[in-house]
């Protein structure tokens, strides 16, 4: 356990070898992870928990940490050595609980160049528990930490009031810590600039613009130079051979390869398991997933995100949120599932409801965005701008409506801003790999399943029935052909495949724009649906879903009229 952003997850990773996502901002870990480590002959279970400043929780994530405390035999209290004073408050609270504690004094290397001198022996004596200096990112001190875990003890300090505890912290600090003055480093100056109104605003715009350009550049590069040539030059001939073997048509042919367009396999329109079923995840979506998470990981590890939260705080308050909600929102641009989970860092239920609803309505995930770039982008960049502009407007307007209609208040922003750090390349690439692997493992079975189901349902004529049933709404109100409803249905499984289903329909550009927006907003995919249910509860999830359907239909209708 320990304060937020002190490196608990890095230590956990070092102890157990279990890979967890680590970043440079408070609130990266919102849930617990279990792992195992060897303590001499025995194996011990290690649990990584979210950070907390005190044992009085102020958010869902902190409650998770507190809940776990009750189940633990030994607490490894990770402490930020460069900010001993604030961290020791939690340490003292833990010592009062009577659980055996061992303290890991992390970021020990930073104390030297910050001019902080800590008397370790004295600290051990005053706390009465083992204290081990560590540098988790390099692995320094981890062995000593493991050796000291069995020696963990609890001095069972008397329970004190808050003020008494702070006084005790002050007296310990006076005895063990000596700080020499030093000058501002360039990183600190940059840090100051990024939260000042003018320079901070410009920086925020530049960072977001550059991020967007880099994501597109890498994404398009991967598609244009790697995946498209692979599919077109190597895979297409294989499929054509297979098509001949299957006599160019029939039920099996339609499922495996799909319909041939002009005698050729068309990876976006054929819709067979081995054509579109592989092309969509690998050649359309994967490149953007890689490039998006590369840029996001960089921003996370450098420590820019909390500063962005400060800059957008005023705007976010208009939406009934505070600035920190921008972090789950940005995560949502990758995938809505971790984004909804990340809303646990927000303090009130109301904020969590608003944030989760806005994310699942107006924030398209990377997979869907890749399809929007691919399909809508082919008709012209201005149409992509229309899709994004509409979603952004919906985000703002719906936010304002929710702020005015959902009862409760939004607490003010109160966050710690971590120092800028140079990213650890190894850790960053590992995080990128975890996320990309997570995408592949989760998305590909569902995509293939969806393609299979679509083909079978087509064959059985089920879609025809649904399409006829909902035709008035879809055709009159949204101006889409009635077949588009199948896409909306499949959108529940995966939105990228759903958007892909619009490709063979020969839609006009306007219809494609309306279709993309409606699909993006309409219903969360099944994975998001499940997390929403878990995180918000049945009633709020139903409310959230109701808002989604209404908002999607209204927006689609308006777009249909305006464009």
């Amino acid at each position, binding site marked *: 356990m320990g304060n937020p952003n002190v490196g608990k997850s890095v230590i956990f990773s070092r102890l157990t070898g279990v890979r967890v996502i680590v970043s440079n901002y408070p609130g990266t870990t919102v849930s617990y992870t279990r792992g195992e480590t060897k303590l001499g002959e025995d194996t011990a279970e290690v649990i990584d928990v979210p950070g907390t400043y005190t044992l009085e929780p102020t958010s869902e994530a902190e409650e998770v940490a507190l809940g776990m405390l009750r189940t633990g035999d030994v607490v490894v209290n990770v402490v930020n050595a460069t900010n001993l004073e*604030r961290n020791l408050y939690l340490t003292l609270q833990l010592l009062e609980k009577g659980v055996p504690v061992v303290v890991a004094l992390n970021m020990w290397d930073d104390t030297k160049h910050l001019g902080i001198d800590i008397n370790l022996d004295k600290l051990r004596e005053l706390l009465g528990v083992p204290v081990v200096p560590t540098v988790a990112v390099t692995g320094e001190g981890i062995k000593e930490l493991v050796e000291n875990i069995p020696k963990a003890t609890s001095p069972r300090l008397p329970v004190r009031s808050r003020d008494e505890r*702070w006084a005790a912290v002050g007296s310990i600090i006076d005895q063990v810590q000596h700080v020499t003055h030093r000058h501002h480093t360039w990183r600190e100056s940059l840090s100051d600039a990024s939260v000042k*109104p003018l320079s901070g605003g410009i920086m925020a715009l530049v960072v977001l613009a550059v991020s967007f350009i880099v994501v597109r550049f890498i994404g398009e590069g991967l598609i244009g130079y790697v995946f498209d040539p692979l599919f077109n030059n190597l895979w297409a001939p294989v499929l054509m051979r297979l098509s001949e073997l299957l006599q160019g048509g029939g039920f099996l042919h339609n499922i495996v390869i799909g319909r041939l367009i002009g005698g050729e396999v068309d990876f976006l329109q054929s819709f067979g398991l081995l054509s579109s079923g592989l092309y969509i995840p690998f050649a359309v979506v994967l490149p953007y997933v890689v490039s998006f998470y590369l840029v996001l990981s960089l921003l996370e590890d450098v420590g820019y995100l*909390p500063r962005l939260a400060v800059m957008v705080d005023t705007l976010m308050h208009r939406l009934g949120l505070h600035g920190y909600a921008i972090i789950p929102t940005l995560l949502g641009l990758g995938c809505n599932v971790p984004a909804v989970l990340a809303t646990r860092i927000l303090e009130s239920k109301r904020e969590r409801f608003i944030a989760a609803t806005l994310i699942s309505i107006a924030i398209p995930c990377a997979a869907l965005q890749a399809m929007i770039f691919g399909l809508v982008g082919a008709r012209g960049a201005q149409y992509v701008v229309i899709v994004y502009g509409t979603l952004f407007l919906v985000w703002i307007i719906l936010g304002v409506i929710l702020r005015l209609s959902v009862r409760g208040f939004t607490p003010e922003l109160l966050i*710690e801003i971590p*120092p800028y750090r140079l990213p650890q390349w190894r850790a960053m690439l590992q995080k990128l790999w975890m996320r990309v692997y997570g995408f592949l493992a989760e998305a590909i079975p569902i995509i293939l399943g969806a393609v299979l189901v679509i083909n079978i349902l087509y064959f059985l004529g089920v879609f025809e029935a649904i399409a006829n049933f909902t035709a008035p709404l879809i055709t009159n109100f949204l101006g889409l052909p009635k077949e588009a409803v199948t896409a909306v249905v499949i959108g529940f499984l995966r939105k990228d495949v759903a958007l892909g289903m619009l490709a063979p329909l020969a839609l006009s550009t306007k219809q494609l724009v309306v279709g993309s927006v409606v699909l993006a907003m309409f219903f969360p995919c099944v994975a998001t649906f499940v997390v929403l249910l878990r995180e918000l509860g049945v009633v709020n999830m139903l409310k959230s879903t109701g808002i989604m359907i209404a908002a999607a239909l209204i927006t689609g209708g308006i777009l249909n009229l305006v464009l």
Partner: protein
Amino acid sequence: MRPGQSGIVVQLQGGHGLVNRLSALGIIPGKRITKISSTLMRGPVTVEVDRARVAIGFGMASRILVQLDKGPTK
């Protein structure tokens, strides 16, 4: 308080919840804090306390009473 100025926290004017949240981040009476910056339109204020930077919503920040190094007022 202007950006760059520092002073000693005298009092936290607010309820239990406010005092709890601020003190969790090390903002307690007797502590030296430095204002780094504020943002437009009553946006959050960034301060430095114990070498850590903390961003605080405007309303909350205005309840932190500070004795400036030269002369009082907030």
